[in-house]
């Protein structure tokens, strides 16, 4: 496929000899697409994201980014792939919203003017100008999630990975986060989102990956995968058509 951004072939990860966390996973992700990665707890979803990002060593398999083999190029993946952690609190380094967003661009050694430009742009995009000088740890859950996304966005990654972005959020914050993600996709960002709460966003996904017991058990369009999801321990509301599986009511 021409517009393929990420391709994974035979990815395997194990803890010791007995415990296989991910077993020969192969899939690809189109540029500008919204991929939903779901599966029961302990299926290896977070581990997969951390391997793709370059935080965990890859034992077996190949990762292609924009057609180039980046399996051994962890630094390249760290730069080109952004990961929003499940626990936003643990991601914060700076002692104000602005300082935390700046942290990433400082590490990219960008000129100060470019850093300021990107920070202003991201704060505007995420409507966070008013929180600019707040301490990250005093923000609400939804604001923390937005800041975690801002910290990643400012580094302008090619691919954004989000680990359970709706966890511990109230209804309004989930809707706001979902709207933000769709806006990012519309702006051309490629997104892989981990969530087992498919009723919140399946309608917006272009592509679905289902992990269960270390294996990639389903892959395809939401329409194709939806009838088989409950068989993999994923909650699917009864008699709800695909287009209704969203928390956006507009």
């Amino acid at each position: 496929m021409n517009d393929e951004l990420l391709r994974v072939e035979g990815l395997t990860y194990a803890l010791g000899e007995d415990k296989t966390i991910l077993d020969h996973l192969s899939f690809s992700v189109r540029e500008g697409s919204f991929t939903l990665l779901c599966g029961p707890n302990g299926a290896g979803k977070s581990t997969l994201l951390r391997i793709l990002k370059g935080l965990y060593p890859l034992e077996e398999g190949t990762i292609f980014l924009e057609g180039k083999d980046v399996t051994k190029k962890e630094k390249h993946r760290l730069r080109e792939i952004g990961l929003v952690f499940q626990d936003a609190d643990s991601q914060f380094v700076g002692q104000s919203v602005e300082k935390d967003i700046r942290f990433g661009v400082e590490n990219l050694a960008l000129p100060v003017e470019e850093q300021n430009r990107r920070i202003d742009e991201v704060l505007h995009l995420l409507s966070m100008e008013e929180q600019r000088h707040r301490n990250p740890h005093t923000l609400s859950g939804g604001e923390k999630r937005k800041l975690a996304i801002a910290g990643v966005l400012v580094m302008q990654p090619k691919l954004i990975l989000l680990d359970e972005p709706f966890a511990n959020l109230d209804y309004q914050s989930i809707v706001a986060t979902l709207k933000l993600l769709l806006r990012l996709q519309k702006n051309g960002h490629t997104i892989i989102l981990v969530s087992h709460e498919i009723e919140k966003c399946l309608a917006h996904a272009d592509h679905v990956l289902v992990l269960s017991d270390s294996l990639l058990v389903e892959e395809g369009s939401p329409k194709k995968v939806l009838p088989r999801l409950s068989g993999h321990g994923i909650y699917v509301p009864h008699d709800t058509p695909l287009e209704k599986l969203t928390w956006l009511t507009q």
Partner: protein
Amino acid sequence: MAHAVIFSFRHQDRLLNKTHPLIKVIALLCGCILLFRASGFLLSSIALFLIALTILQRLPLRSYARQLRFFILLFVLIAFGEYAHSQSMRSALIVLVRYALMILYALLITDSTSSDEIANSIPLINKSVLASGIELTLAIVPMIFQVSEEIRIAQRARLRRWSIRSTFEYLSTLFELLLLRLEEQALALEGRLFDAKRKRHAPPVSMHDVPMILATLLFIGLRIFGYE
């Protein structure tokens, strides 16, 4: 919204926030050294200066009340130790005030200075990994208080009463949780391409530094001329 965490930075448009971080650190060090022996006039002068700064800075001491309990316990132990040694109430009280003022100094500095500002402003080391070490260490301090507060609340919610056993449980949970948080943070740092040797820019010295410099020089002068 979460409560303010002790020893964490608050962005404000106040004199202490505008003072050069290095001058604040030097003032803190000088202040602590002077406080070791201070009593009477010098102690009162420093106390008045810090109280004035606390008011100017609008330090949220009420929000810190719970987190300050650890220090209050420490103060009581120090004062008790001094009383047992000297058999003098006055002497115990002076020691207590000295340590309380040292903590207040530290609270004011951390409230007005972010950890990266301190790391950026120290000459000679601000281009080395040591600066990043200082920055990360200072950033971890509020996390320790935050985690300990979370555990305390969780234990209390489950009706845990104080006992030696519960104290050990509390400490082991604290270390375990801190290690987990630090592991996650290490991954997050790596994920955001943390460069310990990155270029740092020291802020310029300005007129806002004058009051802190004058106050510190005054205290040193008082000590030299024997007004202890």
